[in-house]
């Protein structure tokens, strides 16, 4: 395929990525961009060209060991939530923007640790980036008919490298706050993760099912070859020890590689995303790995043995004449390179600016300038770093023209990065791990790594025929770099890893217990180790004593954030802690808050330097720090308790209020009832008194009129008697002192009697009465009382139904041992708000308390009491819409 065509495809592909990145940046809040799948897939930045091409190379030459790179993460991912949640929470709270920032924060915002970590990362990752570029360049050459370019100006890899640098600078350095998320960049990484996996799976399926007849076919052919055993099994115990250490190495790498920390912590938008990642990512790796062996074996079977096994994935389709498939493989490889280079360059450039350049020197310059210039300067520092890194990696590749395979350079990077492991992992869980110990451990480990890996390598490259490696320095056999202290059964990388870890770990542990850290680093250690319990302390988790002026701190903040952002941030801060913004002296919380604010822009160490230059700090002793932290914690939990208590109190007082309202309402009803009773008693009494007075004084009254007046007196006296009986009834029934005369009766007879009683009235009002009843239901009850209930319900209905169209319907049904009767009318119904009161003794509907009430308001209360005394019920159907419906229920068992 001609190179210009490939270049066109590459440019097209890169433009597509740019477009996707810009789109995702704009849509950073949408569910497509902000979602757990994007997070899980972005972790697959782990799969670089090393995975895409290198695994096949290893599988074809030395067998199972390629799996170790992935088994470390597989073991690590179940722990993801537990470990990373803590790291992410702390990082978010303290605006951490890189692994260097995180480790330096843990050890008290220690400037030199941040710098050391940065140097380690650059040393490890730069050759690693070079390797990625090498892969692009070599695959490009393979694809473009093998014509090698000779000068930089004609080398397409150089331009690809420049384009990548532009890409990172564009999407990675939009703001000076490096802890801000870059959704566009992360989204493109996730998209590329999908592409590289899909392309790899396609080529795998193509090899297995198109070129061969399934997996068994390949297996049968390859197992017939010599040396197959080495590819499919462990041939000796040593190789299995190697296996063990390699897994440990990749376990560390998944947490510590700068690009992994970038995507898994800095770019994390929600801790809930960690959940999905912990099963999606291992599954992703599994899919990537199942086809590796078959592609490797197919390469061995199909291709000539002088081709580089690293690129079997690409050679196979090309050899078969499938150019487009080859192009697809190339793009998949390019994807894995791009995401690795982009994220690594971003992470490293942030570290270089925040942990190396700014804290060592640049800060003085920044201190004197205005915010716009500073933001621009910080961004420029990062952009320049990005270009230097990527172009530097390019020249590294060109000049060293590394003979080592992709796989071994990757492993060396892993070993160097692994030097951060004790300081990182133990520091997360052990509060005594101190800054000096972390520094010592990392340095010791790095020196050992340098001696056991880099020196022999450089020796071979630059000094021909040196005996340094084979016989040891000055012939001391114990110091042979590949067989330190006589351990001669490990391959160089494992050997270096083992010894560097021994020194690193021992230095870290011993220095930690021998030399006590200062109060400042202990404060941060407590923060990180107890993140779950101190997390909620926020600014209170920081112990600080000294003198500081708000104005000074503000000036420092404005220099980096600008007036607007500073004002906004401080406003939030003052409101959160309910502080007076006019206060001149700053307290510990403001000092800590300001450090956090600055950390995103200039890194943890510089932020500490910046703030401490404007405040006068007084040392606090360690026990004091711990005491204050404990006190703050207690204050907060006491506050929580208080809040809980006041909440409970409020609920209680609400309940009391309700009860009181109910009582007042009851009182009001009772008053009204008494008024009503008084009115009802006084009215006939008044009538009797007036009439008898007239009769007594008037002798010449006509006889008929006299008779009429006397009848009136009799009627009023009867009314009085009924009223008095009612009141007494109610009193007796509700206090249970009534004696029932219970006998066997036919329910139907009683009902007919009740209807007969009101029949005349119904006829006058033109009300229609329907009865549906169950024949021959015989029950034990006090007939007079039940009759009273029925009559009461019927006369109530009669009062409320309209004239001439009124209907009253009585239905009886038997359910098991229960007789249920419904009395239903088409009257005006019961107002919803009265439903719960109608059976109360003193009930008078609200809307008739001034108007003269219809009835005494005691009928329903009396009826319900009667039903209860018969072990039955009287209820109202609250759902009934067309009028009122009362339900009477009686047990056939009686009593």
């Amino acid at each position: 395929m001609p190179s210009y065509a490939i270049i066109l495809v590459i440019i097209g592909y890169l433009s597509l990525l740019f477009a996707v990145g810009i789109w995702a940046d704009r849509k950073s809040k949408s569910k497509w961009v902000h979602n757990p799948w994007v997070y899980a897939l972005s972790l697959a930045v782990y799969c670089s060209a090393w995975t895409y091409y290198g695994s096949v190379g290893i599988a074809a030459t030395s067998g199972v060991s390629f799996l170790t790179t992935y088994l470390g993460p597989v073991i690590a991912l179940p722990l993801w939530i537990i470990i990373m949640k803590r790291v992410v929470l702390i990082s978010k709270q303290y605006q951490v923007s890189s692994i260097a920032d995180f480790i330096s924060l843990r050890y008290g915002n220690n400037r030199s640790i941040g710098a050391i970590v940065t140097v380690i990362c650059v040393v490890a990752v730069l050759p690693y980036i070079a390797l990625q570029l090498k892969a692009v360049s070599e695959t490009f050459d393979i694809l473009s008919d093998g014509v090698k370019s000779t000068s930089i100006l004609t080398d397409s890899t150089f331009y690809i490298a420049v384009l990548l640098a532009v890409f990172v600078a564009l999407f990675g350095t939009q703001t000076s706050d490096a802890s801000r998320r870059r959704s566009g960049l992360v989204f493109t990484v996730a998209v590329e993760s999908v592409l590289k996996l899909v392309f790899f799976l396609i080529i795998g399926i193509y090899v297995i099912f198109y070129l061969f007849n399934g997996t068994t076919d390949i297996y049968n052919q390859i197992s017939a070859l010599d040396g197959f055993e080495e590819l499919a099994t462990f041939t000796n115990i040593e190789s299995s020890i190697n296996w063990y250490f390699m897994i440990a190495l990749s376990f560390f790498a998944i947490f510590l590689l700068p690009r992994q920390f970038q995507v898994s912590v800095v770019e994390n938008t929600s801790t809930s995303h960690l959940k999905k990642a912990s099963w999606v990512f291992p599954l992703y790796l599994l899919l990537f790995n199942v086809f590796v062996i078959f592609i490797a074996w197919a390469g061995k079977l199909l291709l000539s043995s002088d081709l580089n096994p690293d690129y079997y994935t690409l050679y196979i389709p090309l050899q078969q004449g499938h150019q487009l498939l080859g192009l697809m493989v190339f793009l998949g490889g390019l994807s894995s390179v791009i995401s690795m280079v982009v994220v690594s360059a971003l992470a490293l450039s942030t570290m270089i600016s925040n942990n190396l350049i700014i804290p060592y020197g640049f800060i003085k310059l920044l201190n004197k300038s205005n915010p716009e210039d500073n933001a621009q300067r910080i961004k420029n520092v990062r952009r320049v770093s990005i270009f230097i890194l990527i172009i530097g990696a390019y020249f590294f590749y060109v000049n060293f023209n590394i003979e080592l395979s992709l796989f071994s350079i990757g492993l060396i990077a892993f070993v160097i990065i692994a030097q951060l492991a004790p300081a990182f992992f133990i520091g997360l869980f052990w509060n005594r791990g101190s800054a000096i110990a972390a520094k010592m451990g990392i340095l010791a480990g790095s020196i050992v790594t340098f001696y056991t890996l880099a020196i022999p390598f450089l020796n071979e490259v630059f000094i021909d025929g040196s005996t340094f490696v084979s016989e040891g320095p000055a012939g001391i056999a114990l110091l042979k770099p590949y067989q330190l202290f006589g351990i001669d059964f490990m391959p160089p990388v494992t050997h270096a890893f083992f010894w560097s870890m021994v020194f690193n770990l021992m230095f870290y542990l011993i220095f930690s217990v021998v030399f006590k850290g200062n109060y400042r680093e202990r404060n941060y250690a407590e923060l990180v180790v107890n993140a779950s319990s101190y997390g909620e302390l926020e600014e209170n988790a920081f112990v600080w004593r000294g003198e500081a002026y708000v104005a000074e701190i503000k000036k420092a903040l404005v220099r980096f954030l600008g007036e607007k952002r500073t004002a906004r941030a401080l406003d939030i801060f003052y409101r959160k802690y309910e502080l007076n913004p006019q206060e001149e002296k700053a307290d510990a919380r403001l000092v800590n808050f300001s450090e956090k604010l600055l950390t995103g822009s200039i890194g943890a160490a510089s932020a500490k330097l910046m703030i401490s230059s404007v405040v006068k700090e007084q040392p606090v002793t360690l026990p004091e720090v711990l005491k204050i932290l404990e006190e703050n914690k207690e204050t907060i939990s006491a506050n929580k308790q208080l809040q809980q208590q006041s909440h409970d109190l409020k609920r209680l007082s609400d309940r009391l209020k309700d009860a009181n309202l109910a009582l007042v309402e009851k009182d009001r009803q009772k008053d009204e009832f008494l008024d009503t009773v008084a009115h009802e008693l006084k009215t006939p009494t008044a009538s009797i008194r007036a009439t008898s007075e007239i009769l007594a004084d008037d002798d010449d009254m006509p006889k008929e009129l006299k008779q009429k007046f006397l009848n009136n007196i009799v009627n009023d006296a009867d009314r009085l008697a009924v009223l008095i009986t009612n009141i007494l009834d109610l009193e007796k029934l509700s206090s249970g002192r009534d004696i029932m005369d219970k006998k066997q009766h036919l329910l139907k007879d009683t009902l007919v009697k009740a209807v007969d009683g009101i029949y005349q009235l119904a006829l006058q009002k033109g009300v229609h009465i329907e009865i549906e009843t169950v024949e021959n239901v015989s029950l034990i009850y006090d007939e007079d009382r039940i009759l009273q209930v029925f009559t009461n319900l019927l006369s109530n209905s009669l009062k409320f139904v309209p004239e001439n169209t009124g209907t009253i319907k009585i239905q009886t049904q038997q359910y098991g041992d229960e007789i249920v009767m419904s009395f239903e009318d088409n009257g005006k119904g019961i107002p919803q708000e009265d439903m719960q009161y109608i059976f109360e003794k003193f009930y008078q509907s609200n809307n008739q308390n001034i108007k003269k009430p219809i009835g005494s308001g005691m009928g329903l209360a009396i009826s319900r009491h009667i039903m209860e005394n018969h072990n039955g019920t009287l209820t109202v159907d609250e759902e009934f819409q067309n009028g009122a419906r009362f339900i009477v229920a009686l047990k056939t068992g009686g009593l």
Partner: protein
Amino acid sequence: MKKLLIVDDEPNIVMSLEYAFQKQGYNVFIARDGSEALVIMEREIPDLVVLDIMMPQVDGYETIEIIKKNPAFAKAKIIFLSAKSKAADIEKGLSLGADLYFTKPFSVKKLIAAVDNLIRI
């Protein structure tokens, strides 16, 4: 002949009062509640109204408020005759503009004397 309007929903009381006042020489009109009373007043303009308070539809309070608003009824005297006997009730009745307040049960003789006193002289 002076005109007298009796407003009450209790037929027995109305019947007794109607007889007693007619015998005293008043022209007596009867209404069973406020709305009926107002209809009669438009027509007759009584000199005095005996007014119950607790009545269906328009009660005594509403009735007196309407009467007091209408200048045509300015000369009509009003006596409340009610079973409501609490001090607050009486105060309310008088504050609405009633001339007298009688509580039930009442003495017919005293009521006649009061009516005479208000409109005979």
